[in-house]
């Protein structure tokens, strides 16, 4: 069936099989490979994207369910050609190693900051508890998200 989805600000219309998962639509049809696949059970979270600003696991939605909605993937994080505070913070604070969970972690982090500009360590840990990481022990991911929150606050217009 035909769907129209806005992804990173650009509108895409495509004919998709009703059973096609959103993650496969994003990766295979739109060729946006920054969104990854890590499990079959909605457990690992590496496929997380923002659906109208809210983190969702794109392996647990059909593409057709995104019809008429707006999606942000990691490729949409840069603003006006510059890295966003969350991207800068992950680089500065060594928030990634193999990079496989990173796009999802950054998207969840940015959605959290949008909602809660000054999250505590526990609030960050709870927010990312649907996303697994095997490399970092989460230490520097938490640090990166909190640093991004501080930088966002600092940079926000008063």
């Amino acid at each position, binding site marked *: 069936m035909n769907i129209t989805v806005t992804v990173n600000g650009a509108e895409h219309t495509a004919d998709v099989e009703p059973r096609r998962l959103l993650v496969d639509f994003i990766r295979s049809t739109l060729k946006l490979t920054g969104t990854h696949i*890590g499990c079959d059970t909605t457990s690992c979270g590496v496929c997380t994207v923002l659906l109208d600003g809210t983190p969702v696991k794109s392996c647990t939605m059909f593409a057709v369910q995104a019809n008429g909605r707006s999606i942000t993937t990691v490729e949409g994080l840069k603003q006006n050609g510059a890295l966003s505070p969350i991207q800068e913070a992950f680089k500065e604070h060594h928030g990634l190693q193999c990079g496989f969970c990173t796009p999802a972690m950054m998207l969840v982090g940015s959605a959290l900051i949008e909602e809660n500009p000054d999250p505590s360590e526990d609030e960050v840990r709870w927010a990312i508890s649907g996303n697994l990481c095997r*490399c970092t022990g989460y230490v520097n991911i938490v640090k990166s998200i909190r640093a991004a929150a501080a930088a966002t606050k600092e940079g926000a217009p008063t």
Partner: protein
Amino acid sequence: MTTTAEPRTTPEIGGLGHSRRRVEDARFIEGQGNYVDDIELAGMLHMAIHRSPLAHARILSIDTSGAEAVEGVLAVVTGELLAQYNLAWMPTLSGDTQAVLATDKVRFQGQEIAAVIATDRYIAEDAAELIQVEYEDLEPIVNPQRALEDDAPVIRDDKEAQDSNLVYTWESGDKAATDAAFDQAAKVVSLETFYPRSHPAPLETCGIVADVNSATGQANLYMTSQAPHAHRTVFALVAGLPEQNIRIISPDIGGGFGNKVPVYPGYVVATAASLVIGKPVKWVETRTENLISTGFARDYYMKGELAISNEGRILGLRVDMISDQGAFYSDAQPTAFKAGLFHIVTGSYDYPAAHVTTKGAYTNKAPGGVAYRCSFRVTEASYLIERLVQNAAYEIGMDPAEFRALNFIKPEQFPYSTPTGFVYDSGDYETAMRLAMDMVGYDEIQKEKEQAREEGRLVGIGMASFTEVVGAGHGEDYDILGLKMFDSAELRVHPTGKAILKLGVKSQGQGHETTFAQIVAEELGIPASDVKVVEGDTDNTPYGLGTYASRSTPVAGAATAVISRTLRDKARKIAAHLLEASEDDLEWESGKFSVAGDPESSVSIQDIAFAAYTNPPPGVEAGLEGVHYYDPPNMTYPFGTYIVVVDVDPDSGQWKVRRMVAVDDCGVRINPMVVEGQIHGGLAEGYAMSSMQYITFDDAGNCIGSNFMDYLIPTAWETPRFELGETVTPSPHHPIGAKGVGESATVGSPAAYVNAVLDAIQHLGVKNIDMPVSSDRVWAAMEQAETG
């Protein structure tokens, strides 16, 4: 005690000791990484595998007609078809054989039976489900004790000489000396414990895009490979393809932890299919396929005994164990060592006698035995000795820290020869332990423990003072399938002074592109940002054995330092020519040569590089490049002490880590930020193994732990907070004194977590709880102890 020294280079040069930000991050934070599943080639087909639902059964028939009838299916591959190309079986890294696609029997649940090649992954998966296999049930053998009984059915009846399920027996150390030590002992302390099956479970599963050109025979294989060169050779041997026509490209890897060391049947089938069909074929595992069929780890049943004198000195160690190997013996480890480097089990302690015996058994479980974030069974060894030492201290009424201090190998005893044949290069165990004790406030916690019990609370403090062995070889003793365990670095300095470094190893997140450039920066004074690091392409890098067993820094890092120094020697000749001075009169200071006593007369490494191509000295070969194959004189022995404090709920058995202090000594640290990141990750995986990660099987051989809802990985919410400390005892034989750190925390920490939980309840008489130490097991152990 020493800590990381001030860097000798400026931040602009970025040599050793700088927490240089990572080069590889730029692509990952923009979603521009390039993992195997991101690769898409023109005309690419997709493969899905039909797997056995049974653990042990004879195959009576395979009907592929239903799958073949599906629109979009190009081929269905069976073992019978592969047999025509002599590909139905393949060698394992341990010299055993493994079925690529089953022809006679299935030997574990999830074993590969047939593969569907189709135009789309969805179609391939649909069709794979339509394959019908008729089985005759056989007794599934799910534990090695049963496997070794006389009347157990022989799992590997495909092997002519195999009349039992015994894979090997292996021993290390001196039995007579150990028996004598036990005869003299005032006390013998024993512990039987099971290190359960675990799985590395990197978030990216294993996969391949096989692209074989039917006209030229050129095979480009994009693979999740931690060891691309070794895999190229294995492919040449398995498939009979000429090795020059095989190019293994290992692109970005989403974590490995040992899981991406073996060659898996899916790789072979996809390559064969591409060869026959003449189009690229992609195969990427689902998570369930990853957990049920690829390289598991551990699965060791261990019994250890310590002989102890009246004074509390350890006199000897005796270990007997059984290793559950699964259906095919495919440990990825040095040929001569059937139980890997488990004989490091003597640990950080000084005693004259040890004897280790092992039996390996075939069972109806997935093969693997990979070194999951450890250097070939070192995790199991470290766990056993650190659990034993803690229990011994309780039994003789000594404080566990003081018992360790009394028995530690002392700094002046290095190099230290162990009773099982290792020669530890350097160490200062007590300093690391005392630092960890100071950081955690050891004495105060011990006091609090007493008081807590009076208040009805349970507090435990546990430690592990581990010694690891990493960085295999040397090649004389260590090889994989005959390939000596050296590694390599090729350095080319271009005319403009920029350089490219090519390595035989392959990062899976460790940050080689950042840290190896720092070694070149230190040795040649070329800014690290001017050094590009290339790995994971066998056509464009020198041969190496790959990245696992913490061997990249000890072996390829040494190769990098040596080739950098070789080029510096050549640079001296060129500098002498440019400065019209004698080589002997030149002084080297980060990035330039100057004439002694005349610092104004100097020439930079960049000017020297230009001259190497434009104005080489007469009689000196042009260019500034070279390659070095480094065969280490010994392995390196990182160590440290980890201390965990837990609060245990006496009613439910739930436990929570209150403090986790980790003091690591990995010798000289190339990039402290990256080192700490490695330790964080290892401590989290140690926690995972001790508390929840667990693969087990029911009596029928069904894998329990076949997805992330059953095989539990800690989230940020459960994972403890970590406090890190360091001491620095350089390796005396490594060119830059580094020892490797990627696995220390996984090796050392499980015993610390488990010792902490047991410390909280040992006064009740609980001596052991097997991992994972889940709250229900703690509760049951307390109940049982209290009711007797």
